C-alpha cells in the first residue's frame, strides 16, 4: 500500500466514523461500535507508518493543493516525519484506548451515540492536525479540535456548569487562536509559504527572516500555544473543562489536545530557536505556570482537578524543555506524559464511576483500594508523574531539568514544581490507598461526575488501564528509539546530574507520606496551616474572579455601551430624522390653510420678489 492510501485510511476512517455516528446517533450501540472499529483502523495505519520508518529517514509528504491565496497554493495532505509519526501514534493509540474504555464507561448514557461521534470528530481533527504538512492545515484542525473539545466538555448539555465550562474553554482558547492566526498570516506574508518543511528549512538558515519580525511572529504563535496548552494567563479554562465526561478529560484535556500547543512549538522548533526574546518569554511563562498550577493542585480536593492542574504544570515542563532548546526533552516528556496522564484520568474515571463522587477523600473512604487493578494504575501513573525513578516520567523530566542546567532561575522553578508535583501526586495516592476514616477532613464537593449508579468493572474498562500502566512503566526506556525517529541523539544524564531531581521528588513523596500516608496522619496537608496561602491556592489565586471582574466585566460594559448607542443614538437618530420630517410636513401642510388671500399673497410675494431680484441682478 502506498503511503497515500494508508494516509487516506488514517484520516478518512475517523471522519467516516464521525458522519456515520452522527447520522445514526440515536442507535447508540451501532455508533459506538462503528467508531471503535474505524478508530482501530486509523490506529493501525498510524502504527504502520511508525513501524515502517527507520531512524533518520527523510520526511515524506503526500498532499494536494487546497486553496490559492497570496499568489501561492496551500496544501492539504499528510507529512510523515519523526515528530508526526510519534505524536500520531500516541494520539491514535490513546484515542483507541479511551474509546474502548468509554464503551464501558458510557455504556448507560442515553447520548453516547453523540459522544462517540464527537470522539471520532476529535480523532479526525487531531490526526489531521498532527500529520499536517502546512501551517494552514495545522490551523484549520487546531480550530476543529477546539470545536470537538467544546462539544465534548458540554456533552452533558443539560448541566449549566458544563455548558459554561465549554463556553469558557472555547472563548479562552480562541483568544489564543487570534494570536496564532495573526502570527500565521504574518508568517505567510513574510515567508510567502505555509509549508512546514520549507518554513523550517528556511528558518534554520539564518538571514532569511528579519529577526524582529521573527520575534513578533513567534510571540504571536506562542499566544496560540498559551491558549491551547493552558498556560498562564489563559490556563483557567482547563480545570473547568473537567465538567466533561472523564474519558474526554483523559483524551483531550490531558494527553493529546492540550499538548497540541506543545506539539506546535516542537513543530516550529527551528523557527523559535531564532527568536531569543520569545524563548525567554516562553521559559518565564512556562516556569511560572508549572509552579502556579502545582500550588493549586496541592490543595484541590476533586481528583480530576488535581490532575487537571497537574496537566497544566506538566505542559509547562514540556515548554520549559523546548524553550531551553532541547527538542528531545520536551518531546519525550510530551510522549510519556500523554501515556501516564491518560492512565491517571482513566483511573480517576473508574473511581468516580464506581463511587459517584469526585472527591479524593470520599473515594478513599469508600474503599477505593479494593479496586486493585485501578489502584495499581493510579500508583504507577502517579509515580511516573512524580518522577519516581525508573518510571516513564522520571526519564523525561530528568532531561528537561538537565536542559535547564545553565539557567539557575528556571532550574530552581523546575525543582520547586517537581517537588510539589511529587507531593500532590502522592497526596492523592495516599488518600486513596490509606484512607483515614477518622480524619477531620470534610468531603467538600457534592458528587459531580456520577451520571448513573451503574457499576462496571468489565474488560473494556480494565484493558486500556492495564495497557497504559505497562506503557507508563516501559516508555521511559524507549528514549533512544524515540530520539532516533526524531533524528536526534538522546542525552543520558549521569547519576550525579540526576541526584538533585531524584532527591526533590523523593522529598516531596516523603512529606506527602508525613501529611497523608502515615497512620494517624492529619490528611489536611501542610498548606492548610498557612491559612491565607491555602485560601489563595484553593481559589486558583483568584484569577478566575479577577478575569471575570476585569475582562468579562469590561466586555459586558462595552457591549452595554454599544447596545445603548445602537438603541439610543443610531437607531434613535434615524427615528428622529423621520419624526422631524413629519413635523415639518405637518407645518407646511397646516400652512395650506384654505384662505384664498394667503394663497394669492404667497404667489404675489414670490413673483414680486423674483422681479425685484431680477432687477437688482440686471443693475449690477
Amino acid at each position, binding site marked *: 500500500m502506498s503511503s497515500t492510501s494508508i494516509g487516506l485510511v488514517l484520516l478518512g476512517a475517523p471522519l467516516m466514523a464521525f458522519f456515520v455516528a452522527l447520522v445514526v446517533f440515536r442507535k447508540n450501540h451501532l455508533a459506538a461500535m462503528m467508531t471503535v472499529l474505524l478508530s482501530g483502523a486509523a490506529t493501525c495505519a498510524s502504527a504502520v507508518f511508525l513501524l515502517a520508518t527507520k531512524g533518520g529517514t527523510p520526511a515524506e509528504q503526500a498532499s494536494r493543493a487546497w486553496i490559492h491565496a497570496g499568489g501561492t497554493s496551500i496544501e492539504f495532505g499528510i507529512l510523515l516525519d519523526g515528530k508526526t509519526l510519534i505524536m500520531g501514534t500516541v494520539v491514535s493509540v490513546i484515542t483507541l484506548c479511551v474509546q474502548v474504555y468509554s464503551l464501558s464507561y458510557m455504556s448507560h448514557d442515553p447520548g453516547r451515540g453523540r459522544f462517540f461521534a464527537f470522539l471520532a470528530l476529535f480523532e479526525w481533527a487531531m490526526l489531521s492536525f498532527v500529520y499536517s504538512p502546512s501551517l494552514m492545515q495545522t490551523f484549520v484542525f487546531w480550530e476543529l479540535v477546539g470545536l470537538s473539545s467544546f462539544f465534548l466538555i458540554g456533552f452533558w448539555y443539560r448541566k449549566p456548569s458544563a455548558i459554561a465550562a465549554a463556553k469558557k474553554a472555547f472563548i479562552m482558547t480562541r483568544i489564543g487562536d487570534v494570536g496564532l492566526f495573526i502570527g500565521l498570516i504574518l508568517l505567510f506574508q513574510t515567508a510567502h509559504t505555509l509549508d512546514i518543511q520549507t518554513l523550517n528549512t528556511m528558518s534554520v538558515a539564518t538571514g532569511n527572516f528579519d529577526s524582529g519580525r521573527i520575534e513578533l511572529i513567534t510571540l504571536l504563535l506562542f499566544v496560540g500555544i498559551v491558549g491551547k496548552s493552558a498556560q498562564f494567563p489563559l490556563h483557567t479554562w482547563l480545570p473547568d473543562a473537567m465538567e466533561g465526561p472523564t474519558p474526554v478529560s483523559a483524551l483531550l484535556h490531558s494527553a493529546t489536545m492540550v499538548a497540541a500547543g506543545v506539539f506546535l512549538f516542537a513543530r516550529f522548533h527551528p523557527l523559535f530557536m531564532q527568536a531569543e526574546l520569545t524563548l525567554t518569554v516562553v521559559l518565564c511563562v512556562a516556569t511560572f505556570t508549572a509552579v502556579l498550577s502545582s500550588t493549586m493542585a496541592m490543595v484541590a480536593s476533586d481528583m480530576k482537578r488535581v490532575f487537571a492542574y497537574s496537566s497544566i504544570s506538566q505542559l509547562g515542563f514540556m515548554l520549559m524543555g523546548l524553550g531551553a532548546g532541547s527538542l528531545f526533552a520536551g518531546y519525550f516528556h510530551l510522549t510519556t506524559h500523554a501515556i501516564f496522564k491518560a492512565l491517571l484520568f482513566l483511573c480517576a474515571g473508574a473511581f468516580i464511576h464506581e463511587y459517584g463522587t469526585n472527591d479524593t477523600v470520599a473515594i478513599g473512604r469508600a474503599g477505593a483500594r479494593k479496586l486493585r487493578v485501578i489502584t495499581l494504575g493510579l500508583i504507577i501513573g502517579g509515580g511516573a508523574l512524580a518522577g519516581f525513578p525508573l518510571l516513564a516520567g522520571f526519564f523525561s523530566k530528568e532531561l528537561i531539568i538537565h536542559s535547564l542546567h545553565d539557567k539557575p532561575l528556571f532550574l530552581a522553578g523546575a525543582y520547586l514544581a517537581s517537588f510539589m508535583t511529587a507531593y500532590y501526586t502522592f497526596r492523592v495516592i495516599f488518600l486513596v490507598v490509606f484512607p483515614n476514616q477518622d480524619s477531620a477532613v470534610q468531603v467538600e464537593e457534592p458528587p459531580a461526575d456520577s451520571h448513573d449508579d451503574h457499576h462496571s468493572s468489565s474488560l473494556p474498562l480494565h484493558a486500556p488501564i492495564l495497557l497504559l500502566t505497562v506503557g507508563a512503566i516501559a516508555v521511559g526506556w524507549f528514549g533512544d528509539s524515540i530520539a532516533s525517529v526524531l533524528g536526534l541523539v538522546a542525552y543520558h544524564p549521569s547519576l550525579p546530574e540526576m541526584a538533585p531531581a531524584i532527591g526533590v521528588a523523593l522529598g516531596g513523596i516523603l512529606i506527602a507520606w508525613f501529611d497523608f500516608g502515615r497512620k494517624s496522619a492529619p490528611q489536611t496537608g501542610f498548606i492548610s496551616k498557612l491559612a491565607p496561602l491555602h485560601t489563595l491556592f484553593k481559589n486558583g489565586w483568584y484569577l478566575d474572579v479577577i478575569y471575570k471582574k476585569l475582562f468579562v466585566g469590561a466586555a459586558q460594559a462595552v457591549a452595554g455601551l454599544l447596545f445603548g448607542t445602537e438603541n439610543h443614538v443610531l437607531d434613535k437618530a434615524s427615528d428622529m430624522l423621520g419624526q422631524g420630517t413629519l413635523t415639518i410636513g405637518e407645518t*407646511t*401642510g397646516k400652512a395650506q390653510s*384654505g384662505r384664498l388671500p394667503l394663497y394669492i399673497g404667497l404667489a404675489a*410675494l414670490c*413673483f414680486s420678489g423674483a*422681479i425685484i431680484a431680477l432687477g437688482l441682478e440686471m443693475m449690477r
Partner: protein
Amino acid sequence: MSHPELFCPEFALLLGALLSFACAAIGTKARTAWLVSLAAAIITVGTSALALPYQGHPFATDIYAVDSFSQVLKLGISLALAFAIAISQRQDSTRASARTEVHFFFYLSALGMMMLVSATELLTLYIALELSAYGLYILAALHRRERLGSEAAAKYILFGAAASAISLYGISLIYGAAQTTYIPAIAASGGSPLLIAGVVLTLAGVLYKLAAFPVHSWAPDTYQGAPHEASTFLATASKVAAVGLLLRVLSMAGGNTEHLRTMLIVVAILSMSVGNLSALFQKDFKRLLGFSAVAHAGYLLLGLLSFSKLGAAAAIFYVLTYVPIVVCAFLVVAAVSHNGANPSIASLAGLYKRSPFLGLVLLVAMFGLAGIPPTPGLAGKWFLFSAVIDAGHLWLVLVAAVNATISLYYYLLVVKAAYLDPPGEYPDIKLSPTYSITAFVSVALVVFMGFYPAPIWSMASSAAAVLF
C-alpha cells in the same frame, strides 16, 4: 386654412363637444350622453394617434404649429380625456342635475389644451389658456356636495384669474420688449431684461396650470373639492398641456436662461419639498394626490430648467407616463368612493380583499408615483435627473432624490392601508366592466412603459427635437 387634415384631433374634439352639447340640449339620459362622449373620446385618441406624424402650419401666419411636439402632447391630452370620461361612468360624485352636461366641459377644456400646445403666438396662447381653464372652472364646481364644489371652484377661478392676469401683464411686457407676438420671433429677439421679466411674470399662469410653487395652493383644495372625474382630468390633461405651454414660454427667453434657470431651480425645489412634506399628513386621498401633484410639478421642472433637448424630452416622457399612473390612482378613488364622498386613506382599508384587482391598480399607481419599477416612474426620474446632471446640477438631483424618498413614505402609507389594514365593515367592491377595462388598460400601459420605455422615449425625444 390650407391643410384642414392637420386639425384632425381638434376636429374630433369639436365633434365630441358638439355631440355632448347636443345630448345636453336634448336632455338625454346621463348614461347615453356618457356613451356618446366616450365613443367620441376614443375616436379622438385614435385620431390623435393617427395625426402623430403630421407637420405643418394650418394658417397663413405662423400662429399655430402642428409638429411632433404638439402632436405628441395632443395624444397625451386625448388619452387623459378618454380616461377621465371613462372614469366618469360612475358619476356619483357629480351633481345629479349636471350629469348629462358635464362632458361638454371636458371637451371644451381639452380643445383649449390642444390649442395651447400648438399655439406659437402670444394671443393664441392666451386665448387657449383661458379656454382650457373655463371648462375646468365649471367642472370643479359640480361636486355633488355643493358647498364643497362651489368652494373648490371659487378658489380655483379666482386664483386662476389672478394668475392669468399676472401672466397677461407679463405678456404685455414681452410684447413691449420684442414688439412681436410670434414666439419664434420673440425667441430670436435676443432676451432683453424686460423680456426676461415678462417671461417670469408669464410663468405665473403657466406654473398655475402645472400646480407648481408658489401658485400651487389651489391644487389640493380643488382636487379635493372637484368631482372625481374632474380631478382626474385636472391632474392629467392639465399637466400635459402645462408642460407644453411651459416649454413654449421658456423658449421665448432665447439664449438668456441664466436667471430663469436659477428661479426655476428654486421653484422646483420648493414645489417638490412643499408638495411632499405637506402630503405626509393628509388623510383625504384626493387631497394627498393634490399635494403629490405639486411635488411632481417640481420633478417636471427639473427637466425644463435644464434648457436642453434631453431635459425637454425627459419632461415630456415624464408627463406622458404620469398620465396612466395618475389615472390608476383616481380610478381607485372613483371606484372606492361611496355616494360620491371623497375616500379617506383609511377607507382604502382591506382593498386587497374587497377587490384584489383594484388593490393591484392602487399598488401600481403608488409605485408609479414613487418611481419604483416596473413602472415608468423610475425611468422618468432617471431621465430627468440625467438632464439635470448634464446641466451641471448634481446636488439638485440629490435634493430631488431625497424628496422621492420622503414621498415614498406617504405612498407606502396608502399601500399599507390597502394591503395591511383589515377591511373592517367596508363593503366589497364590484368593478363595472368599464372600470375593469379602464383599469386594465392603464395598468397595462404603465407596466409596458415601465419595462419598455423606448417607444415613449422616442416620441418624447422627437417632440423635444422641435424646440431644441
